[in-house]
């Protein structure tokens, strides 16, 4: 297993945001983490990254404990979320240069230019972040996420704010990374079609608990409690939101 999460829980005061969550990710897998707002997806990703300390449970990545080898693990991991931004006054290039230094990249400028081209924002290189649209900012985040050629990529709604054409480009870039370099990806999204297309396996969270895990078709059958030939994650999601599967 590349990632092993065992009995992970997080409480904020009386509120139990994540409740005894366990899952594993094999190298090269693309895993989708789905669930309604407040299901615990982002909190789980933040705990995997060490940004939030778990109340209990254990996370190991590359066979090492996150609690004791955080720095070493994060050298080979990257993350992006459209909800985090970059220093507004710095240009795209300056921001990416800062992260290139953090990862101590050889030939940083070359690497940055490759990512800018990959996500179609080369022309924005010398533009300040404050002048970018939300979608452009999301793409800068994706450039940052690919800078260190990560073995594990954690993506929190990576296609939010993107128009369909750019979202399609981004999905292809992720699939290419998985095919060519065997990048393992943990992915949260509200876009069910996207998850069906992208992910080998899905973890469905609700009220902080894993309520189903498996392929899109397995999840569909487990939640809807009926035989289906095609995945219907949209329907699964609606069922959950209405509380019928809780």
């Amino acid at each position, binding site marked *: 297993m590349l990632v092993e999460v065992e009995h992970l829980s*997080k409480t*904020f005061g009386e509120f139990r945001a994540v409740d005894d969550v366990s899952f594993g990710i094999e190298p090269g897998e693309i895993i989708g983490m789905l669930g309604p707002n407040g299901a615990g997806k*982002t*909190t789980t990703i*933040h705990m995997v*990254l*060490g*940004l*939030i*300390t778990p109340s209990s449970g254990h996370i190991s990545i590359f066979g090492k404990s996150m609690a004791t080898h*955080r*720095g*070493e693990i*994060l*050298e080979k*991991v*990257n*993350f992006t*979320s459209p*909800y*985090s*931004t*970059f*220093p*507004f*006054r*710095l240009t795209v290039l*300056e921001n990416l*240069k*800062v*992260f290139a*230094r*953090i*990862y*101590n990249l050889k030939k940083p400028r070359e690497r940055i230019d490759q990512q800018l081209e990959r996500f179609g924002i080369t022309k924005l290189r010398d533009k*300040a*972040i404050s002048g970018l649209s939300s979608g452009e900012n999301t793409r800068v*985040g994706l450039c*940052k996420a690919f800078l260190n050629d990560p073995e594990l990529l*954690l993506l929190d709604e990576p296609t939010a704010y993107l128009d369909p054409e750019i979202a399609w480009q981004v999905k292809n870039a992720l699939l290419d990374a998985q095919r060519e370099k065997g990048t393992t990806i943990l992915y949260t999204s509200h876009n069910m079609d996207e998850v069906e297309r992208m992910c080998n396996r899905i973890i469905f969270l609700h009220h902080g608990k894993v309520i189903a895990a498996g392929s899109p078709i397995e999840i569909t059958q487990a939640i809807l409690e009926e035989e289906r030939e095609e995945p219907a994650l949209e329907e699964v999601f609606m069922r959950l939101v209405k509380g019928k599967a809780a």
Partner: protein
Amino acid sequence: MKLHRVNAVIARHVYESRRNFDRVVDTLWWPTLDVVLWGFFSIYLTHGKGLQVSIVSLMLGAAILWTMFYSFQRDMAVAFIDDLWCRNLINLFSTPLMLSEYMAGIIVVCILKVMVGLLAASTIAWAAWSFDIWPWLPKFIPYIANLLVFSLAIGIAITGMIFRYSTKIQALAWGFAGLLMPVSCIFYPVSSLPKWLQDIAWMMPTAHSFEGMRQVLAGKGFSPLHFWWGAGLNVVYFASALMFFGWIFEKARSRGLLVKQE
């Protein structure tokens, strides 16, 4: 601690300083304004008041050193607030960057900014009032070191509090040093305070530094007593600030405050 990651934090804030007019004002405007203001005031005091000309040196020397102290503490907290305002902490701390590397980078940037401010203030003092602080600086260095260590301790403590309570208390970054000003005895001796305030003043490394500096300017030489008292107090304050910061950072991480960023 990895040097390339410290360099990354330095680069981030150097880029910011180049592009953010607020930071240019912080670095150059306030030190210059302080020196101009205190320069005119001390000239006024010497004219027709029977006061010694050395009052100009005392006032300007004190103004320059206080500006260094205040700028260092403010810039540390503001550097952190800059990352908080633009929601960059989640990006930074989802990398291998360690908290100690982040703080080390900010400290280096603050030292660079203080040097730029010192250069600007001392140039104005020299050009306008022929007060040349540079020959005095070697004798001031022990006191300046104490001032900077104390401002570092305060900057660390305030940054820790902003980690915990977020931008709700960001005004402390600009205002906290002002609280210490009366008991730091920048422009007057500790003996001019009421007795109960004197006791508080002697607990401030700043008061010891300014007393020591006045002795040097009065030609009484270096005061080891004031230096060592200041240094001893700094050990206590600095160690307390580090422990407080480590504790509060872990608390913030446990409460998920690092990712809330408001």
